[in-house]
């Protein structure tokens, strides 16, 4: 039994279609996701996640898993960060914080960036990138990369719920972040 708002919305859509049908070629297409394709795609995405996270993964809030990352120093003194996530559902209003910290634990520079929720493909794989200029003369030596996820709307960090191949950052007051690795700059 359709609800009143469903009937009203249906009536509104019919009003639009009636206008568009003035063009003799207009026809409303049947667009409905196939349950089989949805299940198969989800399974394929989970398989990819399982394979890629064999040696490394960092799961946040049981919903968002970092399954691959690459930190690269480019010739132009830019640091390029390429991340690949698997999302259980399309993440909304999520941001990644990436801290480059020195041996004393101080943050020397950051590569924070929002997760582009509109780019989640059907496999639920979500790439995210950031490029930051390395501050000239500011810092050389061993640099540790710390990463976490937070919601700018609530200002809350997502808890780390599973780890493999990386460690939780418990020593610098960021228990909801992981250490991806250390690099000589």
């Amino acid at each position, binding site marked *: 039994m359709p609800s009143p708002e469903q009937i009203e919305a249906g009536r509104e859509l019919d009003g*639009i279609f009636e206008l568009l049908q003035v*063009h003799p070629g207009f026809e409303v*297409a049947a667009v409905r996701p196939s349950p089989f394709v949805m299940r198969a795609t989800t399974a*394929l995405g989970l398989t990819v996640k399982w394979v890629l996270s064999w040696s490394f993964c960092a799961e946040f809030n049981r919903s968002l898993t970092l399954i691959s990352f690459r930190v690269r120093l480019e010739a132009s003194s830019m640091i390029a960060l390429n991340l690949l996530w698997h999302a259980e559902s399309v993440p909304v209003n999520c941001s990644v914080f990436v801290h480059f910290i020195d041996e004393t634990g101080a943050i020397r520079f950051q590569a924070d960036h929002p997760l582009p929720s509109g780019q989640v493909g*059907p496999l639920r794989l979500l790439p995210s990138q950031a490029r930051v200029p390395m501050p000239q003369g500011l810092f050389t030596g061993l640099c540790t990369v710390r990463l976490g996820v937070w919601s700018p709307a609530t200002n809350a960090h997502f808890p780390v719920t599973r780890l493999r191949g990386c460690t939780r950052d418990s020593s610098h007051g960021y228990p909801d972040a992981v250490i991806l690795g250390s690099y000589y700059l």
Partner: protein
Amino acid sequence: MASACADGANVVSDVLASIVIPTKNAGPEFRQTLDAIRRQTLKSEIFIVDSGSTDGTLQLATDFGAHITTIAPETFNHGATRNLGVGQTRTPFCIMLVQDAVPVGDEWLETLLSPFCDNRVVGVTAQQVPRADSNAVARWQVEYRIRFLGDRPRVQEDSDWGHFLDLGFQERLRLASFDNVCSGIRRSFWETHPFRPVSFAEDLDWGMHAIKAGFRLVYSPDAQVIHSHNRPAAYHLKRSYVSGRIVPGILEMNPLDNGVHTDAELLRSLGELCGEARTLVDDQVTDWRSFREYARFGIRDLLRTPIRLLQPNSAPSTPMRGNFYFILDQVLGPNEATAASLRSVVPAALAEAAGAFIAEYYNWCEANGTVSDGLRRLDQVLSKGV
């Protein structure tokens, strides 16, 4: 303030501004508008140009001492009718107001007039705020406009026309923006640059002329009117279409190539997006973000997946589809939607996205001389009643 800002020769008594309101069956709520005008700290005269009211609007206006001119309904024109009203005023400044816009506060008029102290300013636009009973889409439209124009007073001018023509659509729109829902105009400039007798966007057209002539416009968010409309989706479609047809021309933009070059491509895109909207309404969809990803992902896409495994956004998309989901995202916000809230937004979002897309396609066809009979018929229907 009056002596500092008025074009002295035109001042009649102590009244600095006339308020011109085109009306037609304004309803009992019109009293709120007239009451708000009466409460102002500055005196003004009200000029009504009525096109066939039968609901007591004229009596109400008479009770408030308004000057009334009546015209035949079929002669109403957004530009010409306002010119008729302004032509009867004698004050140095005129306020353009629509019948359902309610001024906020007692200093609305004074705030709206204060930028005219700068002699180069010829027009001032007030900020609109949504009515308390506005639906989610109407509220979003007003708030989106506020975000677009900003919440601080802004002077709009570009003394270098060549620079203006280097700007993109959004920048040109922001620079020439002028809105007769509530605006102030300098009468001396209007005498040489009246509104053109156009059926839509006479205000933006006038703003363009002001900028082109080297004058200044001011956006004054401190002067506010309550104004929004809960419109049916079919009206959203028409208004979005007409706006898309006319506004780029006013801003002297070249027609945009949106990637669709034949009626068949347009109709396929339209039909598919309409089908998506129909499913969103008919099914118990709440996770529309996931639906967006899966809706057009078929068995062929699944089979092709291994060779483009990591490619995001593999579902086919058009600017229209992107716009549709952008509006859903904007109106519904970051939290998960209920089926009811989603259904209340989908028709208007479809209408807004489709109207703009068809208009872009029509403009492109028109520039290339490829407007088909079917498209022309669609244009005639969508252009009526806005």
